[in-house]
Every structure is written in structure tokens, then in C-alpha cells.
């Protein structure tokens, strides 16, 4: 019998670094520490405590899975970003809307205005409307090299249909820029040039930081004696190698909520449910569909920039364990502000003077924390009206995330889940499993590997079945290339979007395939 390898799941959040140790589907141990500025400090502490607590030697860890918000936070806070050269292959089209037109000024100032429009590109049919202007590209490569830029984006019209045009352009630029980090738009997004280009530019801007972070993660594990392969969680809850994450940090930007939804699925065994992750400041409500988070259909904005890359459809409401409770003549209000990590100083049960939702929950006897006598004097009417508000807000959010009016199972996870004590309207059953407070680290530990396709197919020529079969085949191949065990790969999502306003046979098909990580 094959010996089951241990998996170490880590979630590096803004406040906490959580870790879980798993053997197959069994949780051997869990630990939470504060995140440190250098990441590795908090990481090393969590991992060391976890190994010690479970009595497991570092050498028996078979693989490490990490979810992190480091990259998205860097972009939001405009820290550690690189200057980027943007090469768009589009002329004679698209010159009226150059790259980064609608970007916030502060970001444009950091990323620079190194923009090059070059001849070439494709119709939706895949035919080229103009040949790639190789002579001009050669000049562009020389100019970028002269400026000393190392982060480069190449975009082309209908690149999801003709990715080879961007690839050819990259090989020409490489002559002058052998060591640059080049992001191709077709690698990071589907149809919709501006949103795909924006995602590619964000990715390139993070490329230097991602080298540094990934290197420091790897060395932190080595320092505690773990030499197992390390994987990073991406937005859809599946894993990528550290090498891939280093090249595509954009794919890790919303792994946090995804991992908590996937962790909730694992802890309850549910395939379809609403997952309510109650933190200190916000509650994130997501929808678990066939074991994965449902994703948004419309454009998403990161740090003021619109992108079309995949993100879980999560509704965030300003409600958490640190949310401030206020009383006035007209009634009781919740937040939207929270004392956040200062709950330990400001909350009444800890001797502070700010009334929070946690104080109310303790007064109501939902759990014990701090000094309950400090809140004993709160009137019953206040307590019950605050609890009414908390439950009503969560119920409205749950209803908004449902796809139909039938009651669905609801899973409560996160440190603030203790605020909820009553049955929830719209829920067929409410689950609050063991280890719910580290659901995100569990989500990282159990992650699978995926492959995707999002491009136009010629249904006129291929037939609908033929086009779908081709799209599925490409998605499966992408999953296997990303490290999936070919025998375990399944298609989990198929979306067809016919092109409207024209009698054409082109259909945009999006397919996602996932599988288990192949053993080394």
C-alpha cells in the first residue's frame, strides 16, 4: 500500500497566518499566528508550532500548499510595483483607446507610460487583418532595452483566438530582452481586450515582487527542514507551482475567499451551499457550486483597475466580530466600522469602552470570552435587537447569493462565526464544523489542479459538439500540463456565449477542468 503523504496547508492573511496539517482527509493539527511584515517570521512560527504540536517530523511533509494575499495587497497599497512596457499589437485598429487610459493617476505614475502600438492582429474568425509588423517590433525591443525595463506586456486583438501572434511578438522582443519578464495577454484573460490587458499589466507590475516573495517562502520552509514541493493557491481554488505563481501572481489575488469556501466544502462534505465567512471586520458570503466557488460574470475592479480575470463571486458586508454597536434615539446601528484587531483592547469584555458585536454575543451567552461581568449590565432589549440585526444582515446576504429561492445549506466559517446563534432564514440547515476557524488553510491543503479555455470557436465549421469537444480537450490538456493526474481530471464548468448582433457561427466557449495533484 502506498504511504499517504502529509499535506501542509497555509493561509498567509493580512492579520493571521493559519496552518493545518492533513493526512488524506484527516486533520492532524491546526495553528494560528499573527502575520509578520516579512511574512517568513509568522510562517516559520506557525509551521514550527504545528509540527511540534502534532509530533510530526518535518521530513514527513509530502507537499505544502499556500494561499496568500501578499500580491493583491501590494497592488492595492501601490508597494513594490515595477515599471512596465506595454506592447499592443493592434494597428490599424484600436489607436483611439490606448492602454491604461482609465487607470488611476498614482498607478500610472508608478508604472510609467511606456506604450507601443504595433501593426497586426486578428478578426474574431482567426484571420489576420494585418500582418505582424516585425520590423517595428524589433525597434520596440531595442527601445525597451535602452530604457532598462524588465517587465513587459504583450497584447493583441483576439489573442484568445490567435495566441500565436503574441508568442511570435515575444520571441522578437527576446532578441533584445533575453531576461525580461514577459506577460502575454492570452495567458491571463479571455475575450475583452482592455480588461485582459489590464490584468496583464497588473501581473507584470507584480513580477519583481513575486520573485522575491516566492523565493522567501521557499527558503522559510527550508529553514524549518521542509523540502517538499510547494504549491500556491490561485483564485479558483486550484494549485499552481511556485514557478508558475512567480510568473503569474495575478492568479493568486483572490485565493483567500476561495480557500475558505473550498475548506467549508471539505469540512462538511457539501457540494452546494452558501458559505458565510465571518471575520473581524467583514463577512464574506460566497456560493459553493459543485465543490467550487461560483465566479463572477461581470468585470471586477482591483485597486481601481478593471480586469476580467476570474474571481469568486463574493459579497462582502461590513459585519464582523469587531463591528461597533451604537445606540441612538432612532434605534440601534451596526458599524460599518470595526475595531478590527484592536478588539483585545477596545472591546468591553476586555475592559475597553467600545461596544462591539462580540460583547453582545458574549452577553447573550453564545460563547465565553474575556470577562462576561463587564457586559452583564447591558439590557436584554438591546442584546436581542443587535442579534436581530446581525442575523437579518446575514440572511439578506445569503439570499442575494442564492441562485434560486429554494432553501440551501449554509456553512459558517471564520473566527467571527460565533456571532450566529439562531437558525437562518433561507437555510435548509446551518453547519458549523470543527476547524471552521481555519477553513482557509484547509482549503489550501486540499486544493486540486486546473486548466482553462476561454476563446471563440467556429461552430459553423466544427459543429457545436465538435467545438465543445475541442474546448474540453484543450482544458484537460492545460490541467495535465499544470500538474494534474490525467486519470483524475474532470470538466467542472462549461459556458457558451454566442456572438450577438451578427449572424455568425462564432461562439465564445469557456471550459474549466480540474484534477488531483499527480504524485511526484
Amino acid at each position: 500500500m502506498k504511504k499517504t503523504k502529509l499535506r501542509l496547508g497555509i493561509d498567509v492573511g493580512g492579520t493571521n497566518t493559519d496552518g493545518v496539517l492533513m493526512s488524506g482527509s484527516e486533520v492532524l493539527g491546526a495553528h494560528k499566528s499573527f502575520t509578520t511584515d516579512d511574512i517568513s517570521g509568522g510562517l516559520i512560527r506557525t509551521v514550527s508550532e504545528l509540527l511540534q504540536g502534532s509530533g510530526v517530523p518535518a521530513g514527513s511533509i509530502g507537499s505544502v500548499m499556500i494561499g496568500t494575499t501578499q500580491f493583491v495587497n501590494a497592488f492595492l497599497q501601490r508597494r513594490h510595483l515595477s515599471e512596465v512596457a506595454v506592447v499592443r499589437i493592434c494597428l490599424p485598429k484600436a489607436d483611439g483607446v490606448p492602454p491604461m487610459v482609465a487607470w488611476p493617476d498614482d498607478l500610472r505614475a508608478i508604472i510609467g507610460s511606456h506604450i507601443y502600438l504595433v501593426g497586426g492582429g486578428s478578426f474574431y474568425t482567426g484571420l489576420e487583418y494585418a500582418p505582424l509588423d516585425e520590423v517595428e517590433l524589433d525597434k520596440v525591443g531595442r527601445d525597451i532595452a535602452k530604457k532598462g525595463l524588465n517587465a513587459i506586456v504583450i497584447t493583441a486583438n483576439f489573442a484568445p483566438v490567435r495566441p500565436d501572434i503574441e508568442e511570435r511578438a515575444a520571441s522578437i522582443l527576446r532578441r533584445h530582452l533575453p531576461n525580461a519578464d514577459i506577460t502575454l495577454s492570452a495567458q491571463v484573460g479571455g475575450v475583452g481586450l482592455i480588461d485582459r490587458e489590464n490584468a496583464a499589466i497588473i501581473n507584470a507590475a507584480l513580477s519583481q515582487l513575486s520573485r522575491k516573495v516566492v523565493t522567501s517562502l521557499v527558503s522559510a520552509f527550508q529553514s524549518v527542514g521542509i523540502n517538499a514541493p510547494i504549491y500556491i493557491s490561485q483564485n479558483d481554488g486550484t494549485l499552481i507551482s511556485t514557478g508558475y505563481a512567480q510568473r503569474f501572481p495575478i492568479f493568486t489575488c483572490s485565493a483567500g475567499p476561495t480557500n475558505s469556501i473550498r475548506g467549508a466544502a471539505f469540512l462538511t462534505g457539501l457540494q452546494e451551499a452558501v458559505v458565510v465567512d465571518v471575520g473581524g471586520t467583514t463577512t464574506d458570503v460566497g456560493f459553493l457550486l459543485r465543490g467550487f466557488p461560483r465566479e463572477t460574470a461581470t468585470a471586477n475592479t482591483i485597486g481601481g483597475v478593471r480586469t476580467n480575470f476570474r474571481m469568486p463571486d463574493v459579497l462582502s458586508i461590513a459585519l464582523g466580530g469587531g463591528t461597533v454597536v451604537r445606540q441612538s434615539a432612532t434605534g440601534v446601528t451596526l458599524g460599518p466600522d470595526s475595531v478590527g484587531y484592536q478588539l483585545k483592547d477596545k472591546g468591553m469584555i476586555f475592559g475597553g469602552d467600545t461596544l462591539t458585536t462580540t460583547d453582545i454575543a458574549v452577553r447573550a451567552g453564545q460563547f465565553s470570552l474575556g470577562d462576561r461581568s463587564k457586559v452583564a449590565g447591558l439590557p436584554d432589549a438591546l442584546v436581542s435587537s443587535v442579534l436581530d440585526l446581525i442575523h437579518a444582515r446575514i440572511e439578506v446576504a445569503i439570499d442575494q447569493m442564492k441562485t434560486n429561492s429554494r432553501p440551501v445549506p449554509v456553512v459558517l466559517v471564520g473566527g467571527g462565526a460565533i456571532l450566529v446563534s439562531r437558525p437562518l432564514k433561507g437555510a435548509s440547515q446551518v453547519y458549523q464544523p470543527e476547524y471552521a476557524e481555519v477553513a482557509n488553510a484547509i482549503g489550501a491543503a486540499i486544493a486540486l489542479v486546473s486548466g482553462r479555455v476561454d476563446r471563440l470557436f467556429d461552430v459553423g465549421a466544427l459543429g457545436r459538439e465538435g467545438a465543445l469537444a475541442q474546448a474540453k480537450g484543450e482544458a484537460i490538456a492545460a490541467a495535465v500540463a499544470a500538474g494534474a493526474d490525467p486519470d483524475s481530471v474532470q470538466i467542472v464548468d462549461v459556458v457558451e456565449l454566442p456572438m450577438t448582433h451578427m449572424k455568425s457561427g462564432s461562439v465564445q466557449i469557456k471550459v474549466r477542468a480540474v484534477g488531483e495533484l499527480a504524485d511526484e
Partner: protein
Amino acid sequence: MRMIETVQEIQDMARGAVFLGSGGGGDPYVGELFLRQQLNLGRHAKIVDASELADDAFVICIAGVGAPTVLVEHLVSAKTLLRVLEHAEKFYGRKVDALISAEIGGANSMFPVALGAQTGLPVVDGDGMGRAFPHLEMTTFSVYGIKTSPGFVMDDSGNVVSFETSTDRLAEEVVRGVATALGAMVYGCFYPMSGAQLKATAVLGTISQTIEIGRHIREARDHCEDPFTGLMAYLNDPAKERHARILFDGKIVDVTHETRDGWHWGRVVIGNTTDESDQLTVDIQNEFLIAKRNGRTVTVVPDLISVLDTETAEPLTAEMLAYGQRVRVIGYSAAPVMRRPECLKVFGPRMFGLDEDFVPVEELTG
């Protein structure tokens, strides 16, 4: 006369254009970005009242024809728009004095303004629909005898196809066929007319309306006020022959979409959150065509139906609707000219296969 000089005005206009699109017309996002780039270059569009035009001024409609999916990939070429104007002056043998939009709802609100910003040519505050419609001939211009022919379309590679058809309906067929052959996105010149003809036929003041609608929504949000209060006060102004009603407030309980012959068909059902038996259905044929509350018609084409997010009052296109969204539906009167019998023969309910006559929203809702 007014100049469009700020990002806010451009965004207000785009948001208002989605509202007047009545669910259709395509997302004006690409046009918004084009105008922002012109603004970055220090160029501003000049919007003029029809009354400022000389009767013998020469005016043309500038429009994009094609698939929204292609527009979001190929974007818009500033050079192409300039060439459209250059070719128009050669083609018609005279200088163009002003531009006008054929369709204020959705993406086509933007192209004349974009070309106006580039060239300094004035753009007339008005259009031929006051909303969005799927066909080129569904304009007040056409109803009142202005021909879309002779006209032409052009692609970004400089291919030009001119047309002269016996009817405007045929021009629609020809132009769409040409657009397909040229990659599903072309820019064209339609409805050449004089200043006097424009004043007699256009739906006036619609660019100002887009900006005002967007401004009311934005300012209410900025001041944390209910965004519907100011918007409804603006839209419902009987002294200006404007009537608006909040038709329904609820949650989307069902949406169906399908593509038939290249067009978007569908239905959305919105449920009252406190009374399950109370529902509003809205039928979609590219645009929202008819809204019925519990089986009784409350707004029908050419009056406008707009679906907005309950919290933010963001107007939503038909493609954006999904189960669970909290929405408020507004019925809004079409311009008085659009409700005349001769107009209803071209874009009244029966032209969309609906078996009922047009009744104004203010009568349907009492």
C-alpha cells in the same frame, strides 16, 4: 452649447446612455474610454442645441454597426473616425457642419461625441430614437422622410462600401451583411440631412438627458442619499412632457437568455420580496420591450423600461441581469414624437410581434 470637459461628465453620459438603452444598445464602456483619452489629450466635445444650427447646415449621423464582442476586442480607431468624416465630405461633396447620434441608448451615443472631440465639430444634442432599437430604420429621421441613403460604411483597414437602397429597412440588411463580411465591426455615415430637417425630426435634448441622469445618480451616491429620489424627480416632470414611474421593486427570481438569428431574446421575472404572488415580468428582444405586473401591462415599447440596482441605482443592460439581484424597475415615457401613430407603425409594440397597442406609461400606471 456646452463642452464636455471632465471625466465625471463622460461617466455620467455613459451611465445615462445605459439607462436610455432600455437594456440594449451595447455597453458604452469603450466609447467612454475613447473620450477619456481625448480628454487626456486636452480635447473636448462641443454639444450644441439644434436651435443653434443654421437651417442649411449639413449634418450626418455617425454610428458603429457590429457585434459588441468585436467592439471590446478591436476597440475604436481614432484614425478611422477621422477618415469617416474625410470620406463623408468627399462622398457628399460638401463640408459637414455638425454630427448627430442615430441612437442615444448604449454604445452609439458615444461615436459622434468621440469624433466631435477629435475634430471640434459640434455634436447636436439629440438623436433619432431617444433610446436604443435593434434596426437602423427605427428612427424618427426615417419616419419623417429622411433617407439613410446614400450612405457608406468603413472598416479600420480603409475598406469602404457605399449603399443606396430603396428603403431604410433594406439599408439595415445591406449594412449588417457588409459588417459581417468586414469582421463584424464597421463605422458608417447615415441619414445625411439639413439643419432644418434635423430640427423637424430629431428627438431633441437626449445627450443632456444622459448627462443629467448620470449626474443625479452620481451626486446622490456621493452624498449618501437615496439615488432614486433625485432621479425620479428629474425624470417625472409632466410640465416637460416627461413621465416616469417606479414599476416594481424586488429581486430577480428568474432570467432566461437565448440567441436567435444573432439577436438576444429573453425574459426576466422579478418577485416582490414580501408578497410572493406579486411579480413583474420583462420581455427582452435586445432591449426591454414590455413589462407586465401580474399579467397586466405597465410599460410597453417605445416607452422605456430600465432595470437598476436597488442600492446604487446603476442601470443594468439585459446581459447583466442575473438571479438574486435586487432591482428597481423604472418605466419612462418615450419622447412625445416617438409616440405618434406614424412612429408606432415603425417601432410600436406590433412591430416586435406583441399583440397589443401602445398605451403610454402614465395611463397604464394611473
